[in-house]
């Protein structure tokens, strides 16, 4: 009984504060400001510094939600491989089947986080030059061929050499 009364008074006190002074408010004000100015952006789906620009994701996407755009400044990854394009993702078309993610060679061949993830790609660093020197771990030749056929020609040569 005594506990109950103490509890009620405490509750009344807390709620008075909430009503009059908006204490303990949980609504996110930064988000409110962002929405008011229309600044909510779609989560990042391509990790630029992990992508080798091989076009596999764009080639496999069943609904054409990805297209490759030429980079303004090509990035030299190894001495004989220059990344010239990068994937651009259209969320309106995507159906989140993960085929782009699963066929991205960074994931398919090296088992590292893929450079593309249709949800949110996350923050991670990959040393591509080093990675591309590693031998490819993939037993099944058929599967290897299937994935490699998705890549553009330059990337195909590169990875075939690497394996």
């Amino acid at each position: 009984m005594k506990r109950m009364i103490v509890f009620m008074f405490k509750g009344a006190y807390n709620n008075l504060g909430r009503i009059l002074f908006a204490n303990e408010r949980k609504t996110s004000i930064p988000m409110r400001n962002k929405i008011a100015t229309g600044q909510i952006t779609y989560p990042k789906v391509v990790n630029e510094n992990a992508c080798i620009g091989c076009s596999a994701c764009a080639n496999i996407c069943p609904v054409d939600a990805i297209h490759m755009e030429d980079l303004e400044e090509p990035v030299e990854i190894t001495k004989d491989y220059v990344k010239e394009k990068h994937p651009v993702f259209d969320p309106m078309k995507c159906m989140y089947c993960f085929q782009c993610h699963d066929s991205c060679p960074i994931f398919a061949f090296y088992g590292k986080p893929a450079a593309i993830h249709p949800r949110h790609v996350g923050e991670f660093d990959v040393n591509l030059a080093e990675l591309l020197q590693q031998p490819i771990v993939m037993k099944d030749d058929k599967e290897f061929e299937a994935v490699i056929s998705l890549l553009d020609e330059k990337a195909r040569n590169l990875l075939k050499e690497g394996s």
Partner: protein
Amino acid sequence: MADTDRKDRAEVEVPMGMVHSALLEPFRIRLFVDDEVVVDAEITYDTAHRGIERIMEGMPIQKGLILTERICGICSHIHIWNGTRMVERGLGIDVPQRAHHIRVIGNELERLHSHLLYLGHAFEILGHETFSMRCFMVREPVQNILFVLSGNRVHYTIPVLGGIRPRADISHEKRQTMFSMIDKLETDLREFAARVLNDPFIVSRIKEIGYLSKEDAVKYGALGPNMRASGIDFDWRYKLPEYRDHFDFEVIVRDGGTVLDRVACRVFECLESIKIIRQALETLPDEDPTNVDFELGAMGYSTSYNEAARGEIYDSCALDEVGRIRSYINRTPSMSSLSAMEVSCIGDHLTDASITIASCDPCLTCTNRMTVVDEKKGTNYVMEPEDVLRLARRV
């Protein structure tokens, strides 16, 4: 005998759904009432049938597994995990312990968010908006942890054959973040649980209604917390090596069988889940989380059971020589728990019936089964036992 008795007493039918504030998901409830006391109930759930099992037929297994996740946005992880587990069992693929741990973490986080969602929904039906909002507030950190872990709040896509997707691997920083978020979550949850279970108004609304006896729970196949709230001590987590050998936790069993027990059961399960997540994070082995050293190929019929937030889940399928799916079957807990609710809401007030039905955590997206589509007439309907019998006789 009892049936005819009831039949005479019912005066009216009150249909609810498919679009209704208390149901949320599209399903149809027909309540047969005498005055306002429910005499019989019929729950039908074919509206969300999307034919996932059928479109999976012949798909490469990796793609199919991604589709299993899309069966449901609440039990998303458990579907893909159980499917993956089934294939791994069938093909004998070794999975690193680290991957097991991360999958368990995913599953327990899912249990947390599912149970909290359940509570939020229950309060919404009780008309208690404030507490419903508190529930969602407590739930918010869980969603954030999941986002940190996997990059999405709902479909995390953690397991992949042989391990986990590297996106969901737990780095050192991630682990620290998760620890601190979980500590915060636990204090909030305990405070809230104490507040709820001591609120006289709420308890007066949910005690002594929706009684499901132990016998009925067995007979109608209630699963998961619904079954455990009726006094049946069974949990797949006791049997799975992923859990059994590594974690120390309790399975909550209560004897009452009422809505109050089902709610309380879930509240306490949440605390156990937090315990498991902590242990998993603490004992996370340091190794490569994904094993790519396996070959896909023909697989005989393989099965797997697991404990989803809402009860037992079952997957089975076979693979052909190139690893394509043959006859995937997935059976989910809501399916059978719902039929148990058809009986347990009998004898309650109409308003209580909706909380009773909600108290089994109905969620329909996995539950929709056989629909017959008559292309010529352009109609479709759900097969009834009589229809099946008729067809059988005709043959």
